[in-house]
């Protein structure tokens, strides 16, 4: 086994950074509230995994979307568990981001040189909220339709440009098949990529600057 890892390490050169990562010291005066960010990230990973599984059966078209969600919920083996994990992880993810932000604020960990990390975290939170909004439409039921219709019509209240931006978001003058496809693309492609990029920055800065211990 160790020969295999030696061979792998010759190509990957992962052992020394890996050692640095494992042998670094953690400030002594931190407590369990410092886990909130990590818990949020755990739920993010579960969202990614369950989301990948959901794409196998989900069909983002006007005719099939509702039926495919029905199929996932009622017929696919453990489909309801995967969907349940996706739905509940989303709620817990948002909840723990908020707890994490409160902890960071209270421990004043946003102070220089960590202001950019706060800003990146805020942007990741906004991207996550957008993921929640776009994902809510995908079951294509009555509740999803009207929540999205009202939500996107808020954009059209922007003076002058509102109508055009709302049309861009919906791909139509009201929520339609175009909106479903756009929201699907945003939900499974654009927003996850943006969020992963932001989280990479977030963690990179933590790695470089270390955990902020209380002043």
């Amino acid at each position, binding site marked *: 086994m160790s020969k295999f890892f030696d061979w792998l390490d010759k190509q990957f050169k992962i052992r020394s950074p890996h050692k640095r990562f494992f042998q670094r010291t953690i400030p002594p005066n931190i407590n369990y509230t410092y886990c909130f960010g990590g818990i949020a990230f755990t739920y993010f990973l579960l969202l990614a995994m369950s989301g990948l599984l959901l794409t196998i059966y989900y069909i983002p078209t006007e005719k099939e979307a509702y039926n495919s969600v029905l199929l996932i919920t009622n017929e696919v083996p453990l489909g309801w568990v995967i969907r349940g994990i996706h739905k509940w992880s989303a709620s817990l993810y948002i909840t723990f981001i908020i707890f994490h932000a409160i902890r960071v604020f209270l421990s004043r960990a946003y102070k220089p040189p960590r202001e950019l990390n706060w800003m990146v975290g*805020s942007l990741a939170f906004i991207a996550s909220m957008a993921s929640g909004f776009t994902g809510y439409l995908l079951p294509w039921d009555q*509740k999803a339709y009207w929540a999205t219709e009202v939500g996107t019509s808020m954009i059209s209240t922007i003076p002058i440009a509102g109508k055009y931006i709302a049309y861009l978001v919906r791909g139509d003058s009201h929520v339609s098949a175009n909106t479903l496809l756009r929201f699907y693309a945003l939900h499974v492609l654009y927003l996850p990529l943006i969020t992963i990029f932001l989280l990479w920055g977030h963690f990179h800065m933590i790695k470089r600057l270390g955990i902020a211990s209380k002043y």
Partner: protein
Amino acid sequence: MGALPHDKKIGYSLKILSKVKGEPKKFYPDYLSEIIVVITIAIEVLLILVFLMPPTIGRPIDLSKPFQAIPEWYFLWLYKLVSYFHGPFIFVGTVIIPLIFIFILIALPFFDRRRGGRLIASLLGSILLLSFVMLTLISIIDLQ
């Protein structure tokens, strides 16, 4: 992986918790074993919620029937906020106040730069959190 929390390691990690403050911990194995316990609890909580409240799906879309727009719970505050504005001022609720909230959220560290800045940042942060919590609660009460 020697850090899997079998009995001996858990005992070790609990001893670490009761350590006198001031001694730095090593990520491996002290901190990592705690992280694994926390992640396990997080997944357990999630699975309990999934099994207690499995996902449902509503009725298919029927445009002929009126329907109340109920968003995901973390957007309830926004829908409630919008309902307080009418006519030409509706964009205050839909655009201006949310943008101010987003600006405050992102720029929060920069309010805490000068002396007394912590107080300003705390006030602004409290306004954000209280608006979110209060509007969500009002919304939930109204829905019932």
